[in-house]
């Protein structure tokens, strides 16, 4: 406890910060006031402490680096679109939306790899359920095989008979006319003999040319 009637220098130094802040009781303040009148050293300490508080408390002591304000404003502007910590703004939804979109694209790619869509033209269809030992006719200049007697056999002078299994092994495809029943496409449907809209009316030469390209 400080004796308020008369304080010595050590007691003054101990309380001088509180004194400057006005945080001492009235009797102590009075005692310190009296001490300062007679003690030059403590008066110097008081003046110096007040000077320190005044100088460092000045706004001019708080300098910021050049460009600080501009950089701060820029960073705030960059981040200001995300409000709060929740999902309250439109931009906050971008992340999950983008994730879903990426997932969808990824699934699409996988789907595309694993699922082969039906051929849209019977010219590209390999044929199915063709009896392997069925005798078919092939000829030079075409990679199409036919049943015997088909009017669309190309270069009949070179025609020869082989089994369907051999024809397919050698890269021949069934004739879309005479072997239509063995073709199935996405447009015609399975064994859709009535729907000839996917085929050109006079398309045999066209068929051959496409097959050649393949």
């Amino acid at each position: 406890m400080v004796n308020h009637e008369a304080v010595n220098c050590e007691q003054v130094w101990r309380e001088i910060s509180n004194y400057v802040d006005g945080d001492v009781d009235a009797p102590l303040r009075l005692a310190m006031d009296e001490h300062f009148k007679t003690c030059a050293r403590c008066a110097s300490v008081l003046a110096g402490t007040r000077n320190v508080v005044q100088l460092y408390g000045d706004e001019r002591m708080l300098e910021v680096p050049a460009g600080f304000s501009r950089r701060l404003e820029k960073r705030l502007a960059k981040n200001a679109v995300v409000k709060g910590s929740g999902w309250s703004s439109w931009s906050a939804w971008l992340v999950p939306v983008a994730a879903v979109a990426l997932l969808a694209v990824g699934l699409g790619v996988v789907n595309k790899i694993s699922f082969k869509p039906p051929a849209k033209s019977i010219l590209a269809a390999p044929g199915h359920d063709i009896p392997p030992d069925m005798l078919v006719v092939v000829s030079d200049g075409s990679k199409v095989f036919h049943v015997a007697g088909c009017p669309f056999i190309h270069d009949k002078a070179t025609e020869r008979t082989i089994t369907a299994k051999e024809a397919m092994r050698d890269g021949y495809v069934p004739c879309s006319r005479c072997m239509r029943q063995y073709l199935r496409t996405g447009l015609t449907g399975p064994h859709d003999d009535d729907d000839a809209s996917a085929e050109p009316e006079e398309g045999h030469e066209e068929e051959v040319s496409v097959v050649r390209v393949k």
Partner: protein
Amino acid sequence: MSQPSIVLNNSEQAVGARERDLISAVQRGQSELFYELVRPYERRVYAAALAILRNEHDAEDAAQEAMLKAFKNIRQFRAEARFSTWLIQITVNESLMRRRRERTVPMEAIDGHRSGRGDEESEYAPRDFADWREIPSEALERKEVRQRLAEALGTLDRKYREVFMLRDMEHLNIQETAEALGISVASVKTRLLRARLMLRDLLAAGWEQGWFSRLPFEKGTKPW
């Protein structure tokens, strides 16, 4: 004589009202007004970070991060506290967290006179300077004076510097300073006393070392 005080109070009230309006607007979602809200405090925020981190680059980054955290948590701000105090406390927390995490802040040395006084429980005897003069606040217009004062502050031990910075430069009260730093009110008072006396001694020594040799009042009439 009371007129300027009334004008000042009215001005302060107007500023306070404007600040409250800005806070409400930002809390309602007008985020573009946030910079206007914090602009008056950017120097204080930076200074608080610098006092703790002692590195300009780190302090600027911490100050920016603190501003962003304040923005993200603006809805949690309640009017019971001053906005500036809330902002400074966020900055102090951010800076202390960085210091703990990075451990890059160099340990500062204290000169012989003060190194023996690192224990805050011991008494501190201010030096007796027969020829020390007050530094008028006008001197702060000079950059070199500000630099000298900053250097003097920088030589203080961390625990003293932080308390002094928050109390005397950021103008937090004793209780707010204690809360910001997570120490007791008694510790704040003890450290503040020591910091003020040490700075007083440092500035006094600055006269002897010629820090303020070119100030026009060097040979003035205010010897202590």
